[in-house]
């Protein structure tokens, strides 16, 4: 069968393929005729013709502008020449004198310039120039005299000459005509080789030429930069100025900036609305086009700005060109139209200027592409319809064959097969052969069943075919599962019954594939395995009862504690894991109890280990009272420790009663010691509740352990429940205390610097040094202080404040991050004194810093005035100053201000918060200000966080500002943003100049 598979195909396909081939051939012919008939080509060439027309019309308008207007200089050239001649005559000199007399040339150009302005206005060009055949600056032979004027926007004219720039010309020209100097202005012309074609080409042509007509030498020059460094490019037209004898007086020319030409090319719907572009350029002999300037978005999409030459890659049907975009690699079609700028037989007739209309191939051919798509879609639809019709026809023929196949497939293999006649001779013969085959197969099946019985193995087998209603079951299978009562025929059981029996029997799994059964009062273990193959499932059942019983005995031995005979730690773990995992539903309310015998050591050392062991054994036995209806697991953990898990209770109350009773019972028992005395059990226990305290075993264990630990610590011999509040408190305290010790011992803290700004100067004035603990357990200085106070370690913190704070400042100064004139605000703890050695140490190490220090004192409840005063005296004695901190809160009120002499008072942040909105706060601050000002105490506002707060506080006349708005505390002293400083300056300025 498998060998034939490769060549196998359906009758359906054999009919369908030839039909489809015929359809495809027909459609192919249609498409071919469209191509050969030229329909597509005509559409394409129509589009190209359109492009030609566009290029043609732009060419005409541009050419008439170039020839009729821009280069129409004859009249102006004549009047310029006559001005020059008159000037020469008046001066009594000849044209040759211009070569050496710079002053003469300057005078001539001053007279010529107004004519040029007139022509610039009339001619519609962006520039005009005249270069005299003479020296520009005395004794500088490489300079040429002349004037060059530029008007970047010839479409609008100014009544003054404000829109005209002088590119070249002597200063008096600028002053006389009131024309401003261009950024790249020079007094005279100088020419370098690179960008002087516009000049030398004409000069060269005149030298070689014979014509006396100036315009025969007229030369259109590709765009270039007139001045080095000027990004503006322009193309020029220039021609010589002859006098009457044919001597060259100089040159006259105009320029058109590329910007201007682009703006001309941009006009019209081709560029603005269609995707067209225009290029003005010069066509080379090899057909490539040198670009002078290009206009249009599509050109920019296709070509890079620095491309100067367009190289066509092929010629299209109507002489249009196709050019590949250097930017995106896609095609543009181009129509190249020559501009006839030069008469024949003139000097530059071989320069072929062209105007190129361009359009992306895909947009130009959009219509043709759309037509192609329509044809394409039609072809696909035609093919689809043909396929459907062909398959319908084929289907008609193969229907009887399919019916026969169905009969064979659905036939019952257990009974004789009879097939319907199709009345197609070949197929009926095939059907007869199938009937015979079926008969033989039935006989074989009967034989197989007999063999199975004869083997006598305790193996049961069933076979389930997926599409049949009956399941084959061997007699052993039926026997093993005690299915005797189930009606059956020829070893076959109905599928429904089979399913029900299997579901009923297989309820008690022992492990992965072994199941426990109660059959006829006996416990049986059967291993079940099944194999699934294509259309059937075959299953086997083997009796493994003996093997499993052996294993169960072994496991039991492993789980029992040898000394006490109760579960060991390992068994406890296994059983509880099972309970917390698979059997969690059975947990109900549970309690985990840990018990520890109190006096084992004493017994062991006094009466020997045997006594100790029997004490443990007796205790384990006594714990039996906790066990109730299989709802408990009691185990020995190790030595004198025991675990108990009591589970499955409905209420905590019930379980508590049970535990109380049991605990009392246990406590009343004991053992008789070798000396005959009765020794009562004494044990400490802790318990944790499920689910009240925790839902996981590990947590319950931890909590019960903690509870037991507490009992052992303060009331041995009791059983106590876990207290979570106590736990949280203690565990935090244990961690935090250690953290504080680490902080103090290793000086694990650093200082942050928050900027303080002076309102008067709007400059940075100082920093407050803010302690930052470096231990993760203590997040902020508040926590440190609280804990230190509890632990009586505030003095250490005060020391650290001084030493670490000053050391930090010293380091910052050494690194150049902190200026010598910055104030350093340091927070002192009022209740702590500094002893003599500490003060001496500070003087020894930091005496130079102390004048910068401002000691922040707070008036707290437990203030020791003596300490504070001594510290203030100390700091003042060393040049420092004192500030009252947190003014306005708690104890730091007006009284403090009276009692503590200070230089500064810091208004607490709570007063600054929203001070701009709260009239009460405003009144308080005002009050403080007047008091402080009267006593010459400077006021500092803390916690300024918004511009409005800052503005209000400045309004009240505070002297210094501190807060997030002015700068966050940072590890390194930061500058204050210039924008903030400007704001302060702005606010004070406005306050001082209310009328502005």
């Amino acid at each position, binding site marked *: 069968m498998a060998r034939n598979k490769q060549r196998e195909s359906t009758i359906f396909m054999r009919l369908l393929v030839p039909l489809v081939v015929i359809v495809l051939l027909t459609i192919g012919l249609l498409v071919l005729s469209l191509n050969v008939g030229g329909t597509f080509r005509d559409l394409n060439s129509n589009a190209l013709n359109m492009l030609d027309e566009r290029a043609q019309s732009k060419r005409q308008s541009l050419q008439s502008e170039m020839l009729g207007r821009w280069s129409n200089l004859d009249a102006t050239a004549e009047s310029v020449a006559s001005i020059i001649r008159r000037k020469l005559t008046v001066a009594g000199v000849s044209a040759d004198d211009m070569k050496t007399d710079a002053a003469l040339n300057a005078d001539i150009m001053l007279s010529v310039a107004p004519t040029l302005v007139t022509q610039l206005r009339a001619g519609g060009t962006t520039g005009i120039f005249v270069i005299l055949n003479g020296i520009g*600056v005395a004794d500088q032979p490489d300079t040429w005299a002349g004037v060059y004027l530029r008007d970047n*926007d010839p479409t609008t004219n100014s009544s003054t*000459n404000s829109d005209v720039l002088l590119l070249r010309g*002597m*200063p008096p020209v600028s002053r006389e005509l009131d024309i401003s100097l261009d950024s790249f202005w020079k007094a005279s012309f100088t020419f370098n080789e690179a960008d002087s074609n516009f000049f030398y080409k004409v000069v060269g042509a005149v030298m070689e030429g014979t014509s006396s007509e100036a315009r025969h030498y007229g030369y259109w020059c590709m765009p270039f930069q007139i001045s080095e*460094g000027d*990004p503006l490019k322009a193309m020029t037209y220039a021609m010589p100025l002859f006098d009457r004898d044919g001597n060259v007086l100089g040159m006259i020319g105009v320029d058109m900036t590329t910007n201007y030409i682009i703006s001309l090319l941009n006009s019209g719907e081709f560029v*603005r609305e269609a995707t067209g572009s225009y290029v003005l350029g010069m066509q080379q002999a090899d057909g490539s086009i040198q670009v002078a300037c290009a206009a249009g978005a599509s050109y*920019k999409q296709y070509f890079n700005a620095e491309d100067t030459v367009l190289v066509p890659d092929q010629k299209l049907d109507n002489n249009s060109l196709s050019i590949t975009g250097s930017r995106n690699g896609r095609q543009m079609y181009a129509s190249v139209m020559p501009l006839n700028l030069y008469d024949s037989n003139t000097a530059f007739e071989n320069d072929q200027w062209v105007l190129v209309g361009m359009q992306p191939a895909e947009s130009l051919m959009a219509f043709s592409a759309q037509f192609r798509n329509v044809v394409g879609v039609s072809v696909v639809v035609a093919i689809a319809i043909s396929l459907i019709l062909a398959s319908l026809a084929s289907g008609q023929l193969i229907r009887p064959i399919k019916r026969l196949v169905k009969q064979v497939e659905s036939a019952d293999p257990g009974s004789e097969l009879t097939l319907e006649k199709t009345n197609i001779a070949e197929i009926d013969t095939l059907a007869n052969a199938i009937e015979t085959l079926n008969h033989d197969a039935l006989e074989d099946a009967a034989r197989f069943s007999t063999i199975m019985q004869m083997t006598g193995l305790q193996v049961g087998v069933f076979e389930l075919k997926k599409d049949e209603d009956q399941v084959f079951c061997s007699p052993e299978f039926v026997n093993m599962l005690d299915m005797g009562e189930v009606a059956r025929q020829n070893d076959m059981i109905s599928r429904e019954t089979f399913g029900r029996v299997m579901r009923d029997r297989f309820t008690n799994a022992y492990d992965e594939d072994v199941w426990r059964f109660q059959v006829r009062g006996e416990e049986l273990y059967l291993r079940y395995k099944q194999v699934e193959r294509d259309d059937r499932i075959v299953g086997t059942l083997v009796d493994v009862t003996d093997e499993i019983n052996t294993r169960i005995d072994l496991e039991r031995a492993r789980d029992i504690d040898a000394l006490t005979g109760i579960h060991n730690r390992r068994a406890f773990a296994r059983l509880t894991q099972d309970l917390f995992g698979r059997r969690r539903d059975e947990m109900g309310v549970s309690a985990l109890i840990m018990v520890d015998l109190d006096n084992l050591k004493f017994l062991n050392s006094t009466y020997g280990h045997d006594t100790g062991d029997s004490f443990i054994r007796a205790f384990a036995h006594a714990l039996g009272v906790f066990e109730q209806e299989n709802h408990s697991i009691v185990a020995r953990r190790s030595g004198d420790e025991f675990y108990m898990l009591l589970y499955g209770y409905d209420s905590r109350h019930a379980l508590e009663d049970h535990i109380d009773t049991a605990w009392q019972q246990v406590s009343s028992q004991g053992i008789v010691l070798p000396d005959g005395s009765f020794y009562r059990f004494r044990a400490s226990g802790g318990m944790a509740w499920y689910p009240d305290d925790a839902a996981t075993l590990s947590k319950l264990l931890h909590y019960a352990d903690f509870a037991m630990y507490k009992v052992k610590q303060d009331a041995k011999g009791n059983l106590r429940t876990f207290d979570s509040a106590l736990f949280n408190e203690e565990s935090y305290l244990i961690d935090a205390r250690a953290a504080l010790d680490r902080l103090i011992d290793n000086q694990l803290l650093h200082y942050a610097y928050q900027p303080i700004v002076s309102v008067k100067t709007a400059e940075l004035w100082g920093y407050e040094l803010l302690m930052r603990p470096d231990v993760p357990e203590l997040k902020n200085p508040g926590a440190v202080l609280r804990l230190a106070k509890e632990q009586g370690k505030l003095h250490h913190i005060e020391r650290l404040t001084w030493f670490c704070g000053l050391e930090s400042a010293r380091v910052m100064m050494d690194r150049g991050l902190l200026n010598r004139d910055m104030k350093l605000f340091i927070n002192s703890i009022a209740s702590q004194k500094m002893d003599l050695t500490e003060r001496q140490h500070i003087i020894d190490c930091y005496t130079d810093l102390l004048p910068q220090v401002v000691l922040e004192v707070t008036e707290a409840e437990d203030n020791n005035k003596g300490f504070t005063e001594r510290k203030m005296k100390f700091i003042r004695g060393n040049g420092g100053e004192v500030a009252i901190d947190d003014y306005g809160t708690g104890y730091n009120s007006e009284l403090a201000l009276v009692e503590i002499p200070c230089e500064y008072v810091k208004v607490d942040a709570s007063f600054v918060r929203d001070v701009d909105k709260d009239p009460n706060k405003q009144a308080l601050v005002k009050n403080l200000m007047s008091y402080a000002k009267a006593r010459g105490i400077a006021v500092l506002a803390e916690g300024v966080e918004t511009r409005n707060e800052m503005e209000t506080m400045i309004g009240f006349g505070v002297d210094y500002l501190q807060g997030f708005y002015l700068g966050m505390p940072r590890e390194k002293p930061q500058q204050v943003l210039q*924008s903030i400083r400007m704001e302060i300056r702005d606010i004070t300025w406005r306050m001082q100049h209310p009328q502005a």
Partner: protein
Amino acid sequence: MKKMLCLLLALLMLPLCAFAETVKLSPDDPQVLTLWHYYNGAQQQIFDQLVLTFNETVGMEKGIIIEPVSQGGVNDLADKLMDSANRKTGSDKMPDIFAAYADTAHAVNKMGLVADIAAYMTKEEQNEYMDSYMREGRLDGNDALKVFPIAKSTEMMMVNKTEWDAFAADTGADVSMLSTWEGVVEAAEMYYEWSGGKAFFGRDAFANYILIGSLQLGVEMFAVENGEMTLNVNGDVMRRLWDNYVVPYASGWFGAYGRYRSDDVKTGQLVALVGSTSGALYFPTEVTRDDGTTYPIECISLPLPNFEGTDPCAAQQGAGMVVSKSTPEKEYAAVVFLKWFTQEENNIDFSLNSGYLPVKKTANEPEVLAAAMDAQGIDGMLREIIEIGSQITSTYRLYTNNAFDNGYEARQVVDTSMAEAAERALREVEDLVNAGMEREAAIELMTGDDAFARWLEDFRKEMNTALK
């Protein structure tokens, strides 16, 4: 069939688009935006270069092509723009982005042609820009941002060092004199004597002298609140301005010859000028005499002088960019470009090469600027200009009046009235001297109390006409 499908798809997409927060651009169908500016020379060069970089990077990726067009001067640009806005025949289509001063932007905005740039920016993004620059761009007095700052300038003083050194060596004049207007007048008089009658100083943008001077002396001439302008002209203040400009001008100590004072320094007519920081870049490296010969000069850059005893003040100037109202795609694309252009590194790049000052707070920190200049190896005159500019922004109060109706006309009056009075006085003094009068007496006659009173009356009249 294909069209039907497209239509169907489009209909399905419609509700999606309505809720889409950001506008979608496609690199395959790029938005081509025209941008009109008035940069020339070196400024145009760096501007074009940055635009090219944008087009080839972010623009290429997102589908945005910026087409910059230089319209020559700022006035040319404003004229063409007003033509386009009024749809005059033959005028160009409105550009998608254009550079404009507040006055022009105000006028176009009133025609409803200006897009709100803030709609395409988050509050955080807007906060990154200098507050006073943003304030200037919120023309409607609400959160809408109509003018986007891309580069700002202020005014400073530039001095021909070569000439000054020679003068100072002979007379003992000190550069510190040039920090106050009174000092400038004194130095100019000394120079006049020393040079045998040559003018020392001149200035452009005369309106700034009046507006900043008046403000500095305590009176904001155009006080604008909610678009309503109150005119404040104070006689005493104007007299002090008069005494420090018209008197020295009529005496020949100050001067104005070519169209711009920078032209006069280039041609050796003046020694010192006050001008825009952006123009300072063009301060010449040589002086060209009337016969075309040249000699090299060096320059001194100085902060803008102030009146004695006043707080420093300077003009905040430089056009911003305005985005025309069009499709959301175009407006969004325009803002993408503007944001890119003002990113710290690009903005500093532009500033360092053009003499403008950057617009973001961070980019204005002196340390950031100094580091950027070190990185680009910028020193010499350009570095001095940037440093002076930065110094002015941090220590001076920068001022520009808010836009108001007829603001352009009113500014014209301020720009010309006193300057023209000075020019007239000079001519008349010359005439009187030629007629035989003592120069001192002639100057007193033409610039004294009566002359001033006459001018002030004229000035008030002109101003009233302009504001009508």
